[in-house]
Each structure stands twice: as C-alpha cells, then as structure tokens.
C-alpha cells in the first residue's frame, strides 16, 4: 500500500463577500451602519474530502468558479480553510504562475537567486544549480538583462526552469503547462514525465480535458464548491464532458 501524501478532510471555505469589497474606512463605516457588513456568506468549498497517494497524478476538473484554484491554494498552504484540515506530507513546489515571483527590475541572474530563496533553498544550493537552470531555460545570452525586458515566453521558461529544477515530493500545476513554443513545451512535458517516473505526486488543474485524460490517474470533479464525483481520471473525464 502506498502512503498517503495529501489528506484533505472535510474542508470548507467560506468567503465573506461584503467585507471583501470594503477597501476603505469610509466604505467600512457605511456598511457597518447599514448592518450589511457581516452577512453575505459565499461558500467556495463545501465539505471536500479525498486522499492523494504517492505517485498519483491527481486532476481537478470543473467549470470556472467551481473552487479548483481555491482548493489548490489550500493545499499549497497559502489559504487556511474555514473548517476542516489538510495534511501534506512532503515538500510542495507550486509552479508559480508565470513571473509571479519575479522582480521586473532585477536581472535574470538576481531573479534566480531571489526565486530560489522564496522556494526555501539555500544560496549554496542555488549556486550549484544555477547553470542548469539557465541551460534549461535557454537564456544564457540574457543572464544580466532585467527581466522586464524579457518576452513572455522567456519569462515563462525561466519560471518553469526554476520551479522544476529539483524533484519535489508534490508538484502543483495550475494551468501553466502551455508555456513557450511547441519545442519548449515538449521539453517541459519530458521533464514532468521524468519526475513522474521518479515518483512525484502531481496535483493539476486544467480545462484541457484531453490532456487530463492522458496525464492523470485520478480526478475529482468539483461543482459549485462541492464534490460531484471522485474516481479514476478516465471515468471522471468521461462524465465531465
């Protein structure tokens, strides 16, 4: 029996829509007076439970607004669920959305170190991986160029290259596999396949059902924040389409 790496147990996430829209004291006071402040509960996730085992490629499918990204954020530890709990066993590497961790004014070299630090690696480690990252991203000529001058493809290549330079236990992928040209995409896919062979667990969100069918082993279907179905990727995708 393979071990469970991610355990999602009765997770619910509520947002307070009214409070979220108050950005200034004036609005806040106005709403407080009107008594509208506290009650407009929006349930983004309702009682979600599932286990992910080591080596599984786990897909999340559902329409826009079904709560997929919210669930990913909870698993990544960025959001705390309102009720329920998530236990994660192992290192989580989120494939940071293109360029989110970059500082546009810094050069590629500086950004690699900054990004590595954000992901929790040491300076020594980053220095040893530096060449590999640059090689994979094919940006040798642009090492000392501020990344604000990069094209979107270069941005994405650098981001992908940093995020996948080490084998994490769990990789979180939120609709970012479509980076760069077809040649680089092939390279990305190869790298991910490599990781799969080495036993990485992947959680993936995508609207691309064909890809999900091909890639995933298990899937969960979310609808309006509730779990509609859970099972093997083939079944779920067939039901979903």
């Amino acid at each position, binding site marked *: 029996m393979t071990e469970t790496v991610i355990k999602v147990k009765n997770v619910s996430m509520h947002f307070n829509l009214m409070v979220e829209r108050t950005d200034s004291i004036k609005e806040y006071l106005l709403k407080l007076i009107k008594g509208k402040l506290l009650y407009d509960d929006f349930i983004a996730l309702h009682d979600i439970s599932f286990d992910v085992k080591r080596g599984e490629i786990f897909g999340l499918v559902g329409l826009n607004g079904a709560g997929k990204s919210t669930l990913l954020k909870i698993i990544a530890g960025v959001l705390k669920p309102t009720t329920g709990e998530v236990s994660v066993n192992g290192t989580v590497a989120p494939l940071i959305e293109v360029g989110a961790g970059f*500082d546009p*004014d810094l050069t590629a070299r500086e950004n690699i170190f*900054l990004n590595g630090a954000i992901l929790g690696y040491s300076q020594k480690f980053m220095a040893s991986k530096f060449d590999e990252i640059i090689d994979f991203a094919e940006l040798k000529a642009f090492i000392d160029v501020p990344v604000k001058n990069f094209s979107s493809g270069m941005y994405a290549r650098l981001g992908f290259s940093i995020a996948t330079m080490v084998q994490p236990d769990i990789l979180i992928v939120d609709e970012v596999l479509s980076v760069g040209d077809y040649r680089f995409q092939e390279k990305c896919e190869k790298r991910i396949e490599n990781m799969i062979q080495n036993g990485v667990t992947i959680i993936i969100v995508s609207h691309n059902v064909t890809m999900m069918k091909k890639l995933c082993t298990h899937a969960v279907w979310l609808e309006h924040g509730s779990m509609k179905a859970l099972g093997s990727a083939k079944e779920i995708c067939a039901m979903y389409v």
Partner: protein
Amino acid sequence: MFKCIAEIKKYQFLIYELVIRDIKKKYRRSVLGVVWSILNPLLMMAVTAMVFSTIFRFQIENYPLYLLTGQIMFTFFSESTSFAMASIIENASLLKKIYIPKYLFPLSRVISSCVNLLFTLPALLLIIFVTGQTVHIEMTAFIVSLALLLVLCFGVGLLLSTAVVYFRDIFHLYGVVLSLLSYATPIFYPEKIIPEEYQWLIVYNPLYYFLDAFRETLYMGMLPDIELILRCAVIAIVALIIGVYFFNKHENHFILYI
C-alpha cells in the same frame, strides 16, 4: 517563539536576498549609486541648516551635527515603517501563490532601511571631523539605541502592514502622521523652545526618547542614560508585542484582501 527563530534561520537566505534587492533597486541606474546614501543626508542637512540658522537663529552648539543625528534617525523611522507598511501589498502576487512566512516582508524592509542608515554613517563621521567635534569611544554606544529603534520600527511596521491590507486609507493617513511626527520631534529645533503647555507633545512622543538616546551618544559623545535606554526598550517591546499580536491575528486572512 522558538519556532519563529527556527523559521528565520531557515529563511535567512530569503531575508538576505530581499534586503539586497531593496538596496540594489534603490541605486540601480544612478551614476553615483551608493554615494547618494552619504550625499543625500548631507545635502538635506545643508539645506535645513541654511534655512534655520539664518531665519530662526537657534542657540545650538554644533548645529550641523545636531541636525544630522536627528535627520538620520527620523529618516530611518519614516522610511522603514512606510516601506514595511506597503510590503505585504506589494508582494501580493507572491503571497497568493506560495507559502512564505508573511512577516518576512516587513522584517526585510526594516533591515534594508537599517543597512541604508549604516551607509549614511560616513556622512556623520565627515561632519564630526569637519566641525572639529572630538571623537569619543562612547559614541559607538549608539548601536544600542539603533537596535531598539529597529525593534520599534518592526513592531510599527507589522501593525501598519496589517492595517493597510484592510484599509488602504492608511497609506495616505500615515504620510500626514509622519509629517506631524517630524514636527513634534525636536529634530531641527532645540527642545527648550517648546512652551510649557506643549511639553506633552514630546513627553508622549515615543520617538523623542530614541532621538534623545541617539543624541546623547553621537552628538554629546557620552554613554546613554540607563533610564533612557530602559524607556526606549519598554516602548520598543510594547510596539513589537502590539504589532505581532495584530499581525498574527489577521495574517491568515490577508490573502482575501490583497
């Protein structure tokens, strides 16, 4: 507490990188670069000294040094707290994607302002030599008050960065508060000129005590008064506790508002 120290240790490379980033960005593409850290306070001091020594004629011995100590200290406070205030919002895109202890951002901002202050020390030395002030070994004791001020700034920074996530108004408000503080603190005037009925202005101004401690060492060249240092320590620790309390209470919800 121990968890926090272990966490800081784990992320020390990140803190280092964030501090370096702030400093690099500050001087990128300027010809003189880091020299501005020395030049800027000197020029500011020269301008203020020109204005106030001709118009008001304060009776202060070695006015340039008096002014510079005040300005360096106040600049550190205002710069570090306003940068720390913005730090959570500025790094919103990052905080939404990946788990990082959030207090690292205000912390690194305060540290980078402190490094900036250290860069301005040559300016201070220059003024000490030029004005013929004798150098005392006791002057190095300013490190103690600087360390305490750092704690104060971090506490205030935590509080402000929490508040500003919920109310962006604080951005605008804090600018006004800072300019109020800069007048309520005897930076460019002698504290003797404050009339009796307005003494409360400095008695209740926490920055006044830190300024006093700074001046005792750097301006007067003595060891700071123990009682004064204790006062500063109490203020700093109270500010830190308040800051940590509010930050901790709300940090899990930041992501919904940034």
